[in-house]
């Protein structure tokens, strides 16, 4: 028996490392806008890998918002990625306890009934995240606002 579909929005990043905090900022913006939606939870996580997967358990859909630093595109560019696109980065190193794709594979293999059916990742290209500050640069902040709009639209459809 299916109860109500539940969606999680998970803002990831570090709010004391400047632009790395954009995922957290987007989550906060969305929390205000989605206050009345009982079918949507909004959380923040300054962590990665398995800890993120553990936050996602038992939701139907999860939307992750994070910063990304490919160094190959302009700052503020928005990527909308699905887990299958993460396959190509599966073996890449990360600063997390496990990289996200490996943690995801672990969840799919060993807690399949509790994993969300759909995971979407919004990633915003950033450049500098090596100085402790709470300031987010204008281009990244503006991209964050566009992600807020995109997610609201995605939730309506």
């Amino acid at each position, binding site marked *: 028996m299916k109860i109500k579909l539940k969606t999680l929005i998970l803002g*990831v*990043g*570090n*709010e*004391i*490392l400047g632009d*790395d905090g954009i*995922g957290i900022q987007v989550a906060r913006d969305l929390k205000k806008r989605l206050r009345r939606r009982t079918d949507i939870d909004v959380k923040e*996580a*300054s*962590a*990665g890998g*398995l*800890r993120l997967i*553990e*936050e996602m358990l038992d939701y139907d859909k999860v939307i992750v918002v*994070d*910063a*990304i*630093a*490919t*160094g*190959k595109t302009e700052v503020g560019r928005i990527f909308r990625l699905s887990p299958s696109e993460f396959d190509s*980065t599966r*073996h*890449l*190193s*990360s*600063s*997390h*306890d*496990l*990289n*996200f794709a*490996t943690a995801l*594979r*672990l969840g799919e*293999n*060993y*807690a399949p009934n509790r994993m969300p059916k759909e995971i979407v*990742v919004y*990633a915003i290209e*950033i450049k500098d*995240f*090596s*100085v*402790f*500050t709470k300031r987010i640069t204008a281009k990244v902040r503006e991209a964050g606002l566009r992600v807020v709009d995109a997610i609201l639209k995605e939730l309506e459809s």
Partner: protein
Amino acid sequence: MKTVTIDPITRLEGHGKISIFLDDRGNVANAYFQVPELRGFEKFCEGRFVEEMPDITARICGVCPEAHHMASTKTLDAVFNVEPSSAAKKLRELLYSAFYVYDHTTHFYILGGPDFVVGPEAPPEERNIFGVIRKVGVEAGKYVIKQRMDALEIVSMIGGRKVHPTFGVPGGISKPLKETERARIEEMAKEEVKFAQFSLKLFEDIVLKNKTYVDLITGDTYTHKTYYMGLVDDKNRVNFYDGKIRVVDPDGNEFVKFPASDYLNHLEERVEPWSYLKFPYLKKVGWKGFVDGKNSGVYRANTLARLNAADGMATPLAQEQYEKLYETLGGKPVHATLAFHWARLVELLYAAERLLELSQDSEITDPNVRRPITETPSEGVGVVEAPRGTLYHHYQTDERGIVQKVNLIVGTTNNHAAICMSIKKAAEGLIKNGEVSPGILNMVEMAFRAYDPCFACATHTLPGQMPLEVDIYDSRGKLKKRLTRF
């Protein structure tokens, strides 16, 4: 001079880069382990209310926020000169014990364990959590994941949140524990004790019964005779949350024992031009370079170091395992770097037993968990054992409690010099006259992974294009060859 660069390392918590410099004959001259710089932390903290520090410092690291939160909270006790109630201290230690169960489980099975459980000779694509599960079986794999999550649930029951606990305040914690929560924790703690025993049995069956592994652990490649540091209780037993800092010399004799507030009299930090990270060493012995021995101030912290620096464990089952470790490896102290993995499991058992003890203590549901602040804030030092080594926080404030100065020595930093030494020694065995043996990645990675290093993990950025790479340069600095793992 040739340069061999390994960048970055798989399964390392935080970005790191290894550079190996060869001499004119093509043998190892020096090895450096570098981390990216994160700038301006002190400046960021200065001018803020000191009560914000447990939250801010917990955000330095996405891997061990609990350790920073706890050290910071203890520093606030000292800054405000307030002694928490016994119940509050026990609840803090209870959360911290659950955190240790969680963190050591993660390291043994996911980060460090694959080297042993799957095998040091196994191809890199096998040496990961999936390889571990293939070896131990799916049921055991599910068991590991469940026990890790249970420990995390205990952390969030007391700490308020799963990732960044918010419960520490000067003079205690923010909320008491309900009886229903206590009972639930007790049930989970019983299972964690069994799980720790299961893990030690697994280590015995897979590692200790295999002579090749034991020879690798005790072999010279992974041995350094250094000083060891760890927190001990009043009976000189390992304690993660509180006590005095004890240092033993390479022969295992007590060198010094001091309270947290005295740390600046005993530790000095070496600055090297090639690294943003400092190298702490024992002030009274002095810095003699990246060398081991009694005359060198290089010391080690982390699991095996804590066991070496103590006289035993405070819980019965862990004490048995402690004795077994030293009997098997030839008495105290043990200098084998790879034995840090074994010591981690002895500590896992201690943490689980301590968790159970505390969960059965009737005092922990006492509602009196916060003492009022009556004194003017000034200066304080707070120390805990982070899983990766002794963690020091030191704050100075003005009379309003505004932060004027911050100094931290984080867990892994204690081992920074030793990590460089271990990498060099492993590389020496595998690079001869310019010939780089293909096993070098595995062996070098094993050397530093035993320390469970975690550098500057403040960034949580999704990964970009960063395959594991070895760059080899000729004597004129021209790139000769690039080896890529994935």
